[in-house]
């Protein structure tokens, strides 16, 4: 039995036992995978719990469901580890009401870039096979290859499914609610060692953090972003960018009188149009950097194939280190919401300010 079949059986059993009234999981479409919300046991076969593509961030979907009101039905959400971290981060930002929701996550083989999948489909089973043999498939996205947490973490989500380093996949609980749920399912909790799978990702990540950093200061950044279309797709796909109206799309700020354009052009010996392109990315970075959980959807969303995760992921990682904060892995308060009396002393006086 494949992992997907096993999970579908798990979901059907859960429906039968009355432990859930709905499930949210990926489902195949003509050229890709989307998320499906299923409320009947007979529809469970329509889903593919572990999909080879992540077109959206599942936590973002749950945000849409529970934004205005808590989930009125008992919902099981099948989320990848990065999505479950997003889920936790969005709970902190008041964007998801976790009541009545059980999150199941699993040892993740990574996902293929949605566009690549469209022209060269593959299956989750192939990716899982690679994972079981200890290899990260060459087909998976850059952000998946350098994922810091490719497996379930205690306290993030409720139920984990262990796939690596075990003959038969094992379920285990990540929270008290998960423990209760598994007991209700009459499933005994198992164990597996995921350290090797985590380690190869972390090694990749360390290398990546060093080698792929955008250098060359402002000029380097402008070169990196030179093909940007200003479509703001990266922002639309980013689960942390949950604002209803993006500041950078506010006409009260970003509409200028003609003289302003001319003055800029005078000052800078000519300007590129449209303006505020780099400003958008830098501004977005300030807004979401400390909470970037590394799903890499910004990069997948870029129609010009700018490897945006190298910007948001690496600078985000820097920022998170400054504030000693890891988004979505524990209950720490995000630095933008926290008042700390003692912080950032190492930066004092850096810009010529007084001691």
């Amino acid at each position, binding site marked *: 039995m494949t992992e997907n079949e096993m999970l579908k059986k798990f979901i059907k059993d859960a429906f039968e036992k009355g432990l859930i009234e709905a499930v949210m999981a990926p489902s195949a479409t003509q050229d890709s995978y989307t998320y499906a919300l299923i409320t009947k046991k007979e529809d469970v076969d329509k889903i593919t719990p572990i999909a080879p593509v992540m077109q959206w961030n599942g936590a973002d979907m749950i945000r849409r469901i529970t934004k205005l009101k808590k989930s009125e039905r008992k919902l099981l959400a099948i989320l990848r580890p990065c999505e479950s971290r997003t889920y936790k981060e969005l709970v902190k930002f008041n964007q998801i009401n976790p009541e009545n929701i059980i999150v199941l996550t699993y040892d993740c083989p990574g996902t293929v870039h949605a566009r690549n999948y469209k022209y060269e489909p593959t299956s989750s089973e192939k990716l899982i096979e690679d994972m079981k043999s200890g290899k990260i498939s060459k087909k998976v996205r850059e952000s998946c290859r350098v994922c810091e947490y490719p497996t379930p973490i205690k306290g993030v989500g409720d139920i984990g499914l262990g796939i690596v380093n075990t003959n038969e996949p094992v379920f285990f609980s990540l929270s008290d609610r998960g423990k209760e749920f598994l007991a209700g399912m009459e499933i005994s909790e198992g164990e597996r060692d995921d350290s090797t799978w985590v380690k190869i990702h972390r090694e990749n990540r360390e290398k990546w953090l060093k080698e792929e950093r955008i250098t060359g200061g402002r000029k380097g950044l402008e070169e990196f972003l030179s093909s940007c279309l200003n479509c703001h797709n990266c922002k639309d796909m980013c689960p942390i960018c949950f*604002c209803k109206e*993006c500041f950078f799309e506010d006409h*009260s700020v970003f509409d200028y009188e003609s003289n302003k354009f001319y003055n800029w052009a005078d000052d800078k010996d000519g300007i590129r149009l449209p303006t505020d392109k780099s400003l958008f990315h830098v501004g977005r970075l300030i807004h*979401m950097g400390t909470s970037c959980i590394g799903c890499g959807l910004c990069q997948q969303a870029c129609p010009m194939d700018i490897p945006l995760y190298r910007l948001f992921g690496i600078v985000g990682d820097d920022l998170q280190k400054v504030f000693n904060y890891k988004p979505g892995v524990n209950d720490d308060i995000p630095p933008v919401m926290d*008042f700390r009396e003692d912080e950032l002393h190492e930066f004092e006086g850096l810009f010529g300010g007084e001691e």
Partner: protein
Amino acid sequence: MAMKRIGVFICHCGRNIAGTVDVKRVAEEIGKREDVAFSTTYVFMCSQPGQKLIEDSVKKYNLDGVVVANCSPTLHEKTMRNAAARAGLNPYRVEIANIREWAAWPHEDNPDAATRKAIRIINATIEKLKANASLEPIEVPVIRRALVIGGGVAGMQAALDIADSGIETILVEKEATIGGNMFRLSETFPTLDCPQCILTPKMNDVAAHPNIKLYTYSEVEDVEGFMGNFKVKIKKKATFVDWDKCTGCGECLRVCPAHADSEFDLKMAKRTSIYIANEQAVPLKALIDENSCIRLQFEKKVKEGKIKPKKNVKICSKCADVCEPNAIHFQNNEEIVEEEVGAIIVATGYEVMPAEAFPELGGKYPDVITSLQFERLLAPSGPTAGIPRRPSDGKVPESIAFVHCVGSRDPQNGVPYCSRICCMYTIKQAMLVKHAMHDAAVYDFYIDIRSNGKGYEEFYHRAKEEYGVNFIRGKVSKVYKVGDKYRVQGVDTLTGRIVEVDVDMVVLATAAKGSSTVKEIAKKLRIPYDEWGWLKETHLKLKPLETPVGGVFIAGAAQFIKDITDSVSQGSGAAAKVMALLSKPELEKEPLLAKVDPEICAGCGRCKDQCAYDAITIDPVRHVSVVNEALCEGCGACSANCPTTAIQVVNFKKGQVVRAIDVLAEVF
């Protein structure tokens, strides 16, 4: 709708502005703008004719907005707004362009640049002003009661003054008696009054005043609410004695077998475990110190299961046995009471750094003590009845060295500032020692003598000339023990010689700091403090009693170390502020507050977590931020942290601010 008929008034400020900025040229340049209907200059806009000019021009040119280009808005924004309002213009359509501090003063050497910068500043201000909304002040109801935190001389004075005006006042003191540090002193400089004599009338007035509700041995636990409407939780700490019954007879003290260091005598004496703070305490009530009482310690250990009581064992109850009114019940009577008040004065006073903090100056030796401790040894009511004795062996010292500036003016080992009162009290102590023991050798090591008060310099000369105190100008580098004596190693900078004297006692004038409990209180009140524990005033010169939180005032040494005269003056000053505030049935509040656009707000709570005033909540149904206007101070921290600026301060909207910055940032 954007304004089209703006009037611009450029102030000469005598020569302050016009001496550098070409005000005529500024008025001409600004006058060219399409949206400016009238621009002119005047020698003093803040003068009566200057204000009249605004009033007349608003009417004559039918102005819909006014920019006054003068000094900082903290000085005359209100003056100009009122002037415009008298002519019928909404006062929030008046903005100040600060061309004095921003253009004239910093660029005295470059009048042309200063003039162009002034034009730039006014243009930016006009851009901001154009989108200003007309606003009306917000009215907030007021509770006509006041709270004073701290029962020292400043707090008592404040409480008495407010109570005398007919306003009910609650006074909270953390120690078992009111009186504060002043009550510990031997005599006061420069008049040599006995504090026990001059302060007891005030203490008794406080206790007997029909409008004062006194909570001693109590602490402020929690503060909620806002100017005019505070809800305060006060913790009455456990005394284990029923104060309604206790007569303060002191019989219990005579039989108590357990002892601990006396808080009032600052470890210079012991007290019994059941104690009365001092003989003149107000209120004169006994309380039990849980940590040293044999019975309470025993009961605690039994409760924790550390010991098992034997049957029929008689546990100490000597105090209760002799207590005629049966006031001693040994029950933990800690209690939280709630009070509602409209204004709060914080008068939490000061502490001095302990001698132990200065081991190089002998702080580790028992006979090297702080000046405040020495006050107790000099006090006629103190443990040595006014003749100082060495804490180590009780010997009357034949020689004493006083050291000034211990930790003060010394950022490495203490604090950077001058502790202000040490020179004078050290001179006084030296004088009192000489008075009590004519033959004692007294050495006074100082850096400078700072005696800037009424009668202070004369007092210093008396000490030198009449009493023969040896003043040595120079720092002490080391104090160490030699036999029975302490060797003080210093330098005399007037003669350039190293000085070494052997003395029986050393008194260190250690640096003053804010009360150790003040940070907790400040956090509860959301008022700022500095790293030394001094509360921060709104403006050092012009608003020394105010804090950024409306309705919360500060008085006495809580703001910065000061002498009795200044503390009493500030107590009365803060009381006047409170009386003015509580004299109105409703308070008017500036409407420049944060406002949420619920269409854009995503309800993430980033603003809520930034709000220092707890003014923001998230509406659970609409899932958006909501601002409590009565609490909001309009600081804008919320707006700065909102990724989408769904929350903004009225008349400081992003478009306005960005357009103003655009103008300021143009190529110069």
